[in-house]
């Protein structure tokens, strides 16, 4: 059995930031376990720019952003094992992992940071009629084919879902000479950032069809076309609006799911909305000493926010290991009236700092107000020109305000349109 103060599961932006922050805060023995051949996680295939505007104040590509953290890691004595798959995180914080070189590894940790990221919602989750011909893939898979493996997965493309990966791939495929016929979006609004709609679709004249979905795929060996249809307010296809679109590739960008198999196996309850563990203000889960951050906790729009959150978790883990972390009676958070969820779900009543509450709204709001209340009393409010589901929002609760709240109180956040 190996012994480490901190084991970090996952070497993407979340894991690297958490490990570095713990190191900065005096933790000596840290190991990062990464499933892939290199650190960096999904950033390695995100070759477009737009990363780091908040954190570094520069516009970097994904590999450049990851590269900066890899450099910082190299400058420390943090151990890294790549090609290493974590199989289990047990109650007593024993992490079981496996790789080709060491075989089976058992590591006793004082604290664990879960930073496994997320994966794409697959075709099977959509129940689109059609055979299992080739040419149907998630946008992220296509992104790996083009950007890492260096080959084109198709020539005539339809993209279902207007999340950022779908939009980015519309531009990427066009630049490489493919014809992207359209992006279909089930909702009446896009789930992607406005700047991506402008730069990835409008620049290339690619139509974005809102309230529209793919109802069938055609082709036996290779995809030959899809049938699209408009949907009603209940998101059901409207009969008579079907249209055939020929294509050899269908890319799906229909949502991301936090990759929480390890968390679930270790008995952690997941939040129904975020599909991530329920955490306190330092991102400690319901298991003492087990922290979670990045896309495994909640899907983020920007890696900069992943870094910020992971530094909170890394600091929390360091405090836990040193016996300095506040743990006790809590107040609880809840999103209502247009606010879908809040992270963190609970805040230690005697917390030692201000706490940012992160959330997403369920629809588009213009000139709205975010109102934070407790026991019917307004704690704070914040005006917003625009709120949309694609952008994560936050409000900051002062430590002094939290201290004044009754123990076990419920803090609600809502939108007033």
């Amino acid at each position: 059995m190996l012994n480490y103060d901190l084991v970090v599961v996952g070497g993407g932006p979340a894991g690297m930031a958490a490990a570095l922050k713990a190191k900065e805060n005096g933790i000596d023995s840290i190991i990062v376990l990464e499933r892939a051949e290199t650190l960096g996680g999904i950033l390695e295939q995100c070759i477009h720019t737009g990363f780091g505007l908040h954190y570094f104040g520069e516009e970097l590509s994904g590999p450049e952003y990851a590269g900066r953290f890899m450099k910082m890691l190299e400058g420390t004595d943090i151990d890294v094992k790549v090609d290493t798959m974590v199989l289990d995180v047990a109650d007593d914080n024993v992490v079981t992992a496996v790789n080709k070189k060491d075989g089976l590894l058992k590591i006793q940790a004082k604290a664990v940071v879960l930073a496994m990221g997320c994966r794409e919602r697959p075709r099977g989750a959509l129940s689109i009629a059609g055979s299992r011909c080739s040419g149907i893939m998630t946008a992220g898979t296509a992104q790996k084919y083009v950007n890492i493996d260096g080959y084109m997965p198709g020539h005539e493309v339809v993209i279902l879902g207007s999340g950022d990966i779908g939009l980015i791939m519309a531009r990427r495929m066009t630049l490489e000479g493919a014809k992207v016929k359209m992006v279909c979006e089930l909702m009446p609004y896009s789930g992607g950032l406005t700047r991506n709609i402008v730069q990835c679709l409008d620049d290339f004249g690619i139509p974005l069809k809102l309230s529209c979905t793919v109802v069938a795929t055609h082709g036996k060996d290779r995809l030959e076309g899809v049938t699209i249809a408009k949907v009603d307010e209940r998101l059901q296809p409207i009969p008579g609006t079907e249209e055939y679109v020929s294509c050899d590739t269908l890319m799906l960008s229909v949502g991301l799911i936090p990759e929480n198999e390890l968390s679930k196996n270790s008995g952690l309850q997941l939040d129904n909305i975020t599909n991530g563990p329920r955490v306190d203000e330092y991102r400690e889960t319901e298991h003492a000493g087990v922290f979670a951050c990045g896309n495994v906790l909640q899907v983020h729009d920007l890696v900069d926010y992943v870094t910020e959150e992971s530094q909170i978790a890394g600091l929390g883990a360091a405090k836990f290991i040193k016996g300095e972390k506040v743990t006790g009676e809590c107040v609880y958070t809840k999103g209502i009236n247009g606010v879908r969820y809040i992270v963190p779900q609970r805040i230690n009543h005697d917390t030692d700092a201000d706490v940012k509450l992160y959330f997403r709204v369920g629809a588009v709001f213009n000139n709205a107000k975010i109102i934070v209340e407790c026991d019917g009393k307004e704690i704070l409010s914040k005006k917003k020109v625009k709120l949309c589901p694609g952008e994560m929002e936050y409000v900051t609760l002062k430590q002094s305000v939290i201290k004044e709240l009754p123990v076990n109180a419920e803090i609600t956040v809502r939108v007033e349109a």
Partner: protein
Amino acid sequence: MENRELVCVACPLGCPITVTFDADGNVATITGNTCKRGDAYARTEVTNPTRMLTTTVKVEGGKSYVVPVKSANPIPKGMMMECMKVINEASVKAPVNIGDVVIENILGTGVDIIATNYAD
């Protein structure tokens, strides 16, 4: 000259901006933006729109098939596809480091194409 309707991409707010022109085709007014950056974006967008170009270049003699690259600065929007042709005909010998210049002064734009990852 007709008005131009734009959506600002300077930040996630996405302000709708209207640009009007005078008789000589120069920018007369810019409205709808809520900050200075929106004004600057709209001016460039109607005079000489530029974009960052990111793609990959073939790697020879290494483990990696391709290495990601970007334009060191934004290039004229209308030249993106032409630049892609040049980049797709190029290749680079492993090993490659972040920041290595892969193509100098692409198509006389004064902008270099540089590697954004390591490749060996």
